[in-house]
């Protein structure tokens, strides 16, 4: 078993799935010769050839739209978009077609498509390189949305996504692409979509987060423990469908909860979690569920990006506030 980072783990999953199932093809801007701008697809072209690892013209709607045709025809395309900020030209194809082919045809056709892309801020990048609009995708019936936060999960979730019969959007937290290394089994394994992961148990407060917000959440939990507060940290992992049982069980146990995400606050996925907790566990709540989020502003350029991203200081402050409500 090797210690891999997220980039390597995804690369390994792609290699193995392409090996296992010749219907799997990879396409996108710079995914072939260049191995992807984050090097996630390195080595695939050399191994599987131009027919299955496809450098496309610069057109996101074209990438997703042709991938839909491929998927319905019988391939298993894994499309890469270079950054989530360049997802929007392809949004119509996703919402109007990928998400709907099955229901539009009453199950005669389906669309086993994966669209991968790096998302989130914190890498001092230019404008449009720091987006996290997972809530928009979660609001689109027919799509599944997955966000791993560790190398182990990245591999297992991606394999599940590729084998899933429906379109899955796979968001990769680029801030931690290479920041975390852990043991990743060489053999293939899957992690079911739709399941959250309890990273740390605790009885006083439930802390929900995903992607690059998981590490500061864990750090804050460690800090909190020093002050006697036992925080249960849960990585949501699947944004849609999300793991309501794990979420509600935790809140019923702790009575207090905080959601952390880097997306804009209004109508972020945090709002949905708060609404669900309100609906299903209100009587257990000892304090309002709080949200620590990005702002309703454009993600700032590098000189100000530190202001935007939630960090462990904010989280620990909020934990204390909720504990003393």
């Amino acid at each position, binding site marked *: 078993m090797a210690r891999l980072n997220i980039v390597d783990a995804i690369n390994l999953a792609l290699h193995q799935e392409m090996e296992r199932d010749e219907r799997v*093809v990879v396409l996108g801007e710079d995914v072939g010769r260049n191995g992807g701008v984050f090097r996630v697809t390195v080595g695939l072209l050399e191994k599987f050839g131009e*027919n*299955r690892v*496809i450098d*496309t*013209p610069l*057109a996101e*709607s*074209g990438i997703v*739209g*042709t*991938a*839909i*045709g*491929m*998927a*319905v*025809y*019988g*391939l298993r395309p894994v499309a890469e978009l270079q950054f989530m900020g360049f997802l929007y*030209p392809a949004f*119509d*194809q996703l919402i*109007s*077609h990928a998400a709907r*082919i*099955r*229901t*539009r*045809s*009453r*199950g*005669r*056709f*389906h669309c086993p498509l994966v669209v991968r892309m790096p998302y989130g801020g914190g890498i001092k990048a230019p404008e449009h390189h720091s987006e996290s609009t997972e809530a928009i995708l979660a609001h689109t*019936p*027919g799509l*599944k949305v997955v966000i791993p936060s560790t190398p182990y999960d990245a591999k297992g979730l991606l394999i599940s996504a590729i084998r*899933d*019969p*429906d379109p899955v959007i796979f968001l990769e937290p680029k801030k931690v692409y290479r920041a975390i290394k852990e043991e990743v089994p060489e053999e293939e394994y899957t992690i079911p979509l*739709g399941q959250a992961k309890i990273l740390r148990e605790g009885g006083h407060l439930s802390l929900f987060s995903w992607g690059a917000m998981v590490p500061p959440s864990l750090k804050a939990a460690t800090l909190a423990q020093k002050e006697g507060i036992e925080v249960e940290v849960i990585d949501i992992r699947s944004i*849609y*469908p999300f793991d*309501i049982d794990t979420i509600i069980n935790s809140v019923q146990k702790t009575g207090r909860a905080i959601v952390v995400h880097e997306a804009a606050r209004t109508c972020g996925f945090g709002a949905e979690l708060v609404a669900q907790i309100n609906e299903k566990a209100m009587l257990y709540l000892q304090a309002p569920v709080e949200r620590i989020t990005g702002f309703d502003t454009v993600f700032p350029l590098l000189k100000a990006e530190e202001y935007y991203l939630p960090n462990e200081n904010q989280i620990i402050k909020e934990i204390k506030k909720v504990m003393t409500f």
Partner: protein
Amino acid sequence: MLSLLGKYDPLKGEMAQILDKDGRIVNPDLEPKLSNDDLKTLYRFMVLSRVADDKALKLQRQGRFGTYAPVRGQEAAEVGSAYALPRSDWMFPTFREMAAMVVKGMPLESVFLYWMGNELGNAAPEGVNIFPISIPVGTQPLHAVGAAWAAKIKGDDVATLVYFGDGGTSEGDFHEAMNFAGVFQAPTVFFCQNNQYAISIPRARQTAAKTLAQKAIAYGFAGVQVDGNDVLAVYAITKEAIAKAHAGGGPTFIEAYTYRLSHHTTSDDATRYRTKEEVAFWEERDPIKRFQVYLQGKGLWADDYEKGLLDEVTQLVDKATDKAENWPAPSPEDVFKYTYAEMPWTLKEQLAKLLETLG
């Protein structure tokens, strides 16, 4: 038979034609070698389309149909092109392709069921290679390219044909589809029905290019304009483009120059934006009349033949109507169960609540 592709230069305003508006053969050397049966089948499909179209409009006015987009005037373009498509190739229709879909094997009752407001009508039977109708204009050419490209990757001897209108050429997705097709030499035929209008917007307002066919130059492959009201020319040129696709020659763009004789849809009132004179001009170019004269010249058409044919297709249309109207209404479950392969808990919860509310 001569080659039609490449022979007609859209930049010179040349358009392929075999039958002129009065049904006279103007290009005998291009005439496709079709059996009498084939010729009569083409005619039958056009007449069937006309009768089904009229029925649909009537049903809509009676509240038995939802919004409907009539084919009237475009029968040659749809029937001629669809008839040229082998059974194993795939078709990607828009909302206006009732005739093309029926030629390709879609049961008429399915098309009717769809326009009556039941998604089930959008599912082609197994073995009938038709993608579900795409409503967003200009978006489905990408699917046709993707499927063609997938076939190529898999080594299947399959081409795809996608329909869209003059309006559809303005969308960004059309551009991306044409460009991908060129780059990957996808075996796709882009079949543009230039019916002169996108709802109220005349063709000249859609683009400053003199022809739509010349747009193919931007993507490095052949574009050709064909008289879309001439079923023989449409058939011949589509056949050639399909053969080229199968032979590894890549994509072709066909602009079928035609006219929508009816309203855009049943919600539209075309008298708001076009003149009687213009419509009359095109009535004279009716694709069905023209082909009838041709068949008559070949001794394949007579008054009693027409009468028998009308009886036959009218019965067929009535039967399709009955079947569609007597289809069981969708259940609440039907709204939910095709969203994903398996219903997530969210849908189960929402469905349970709905069933509870319904009592």
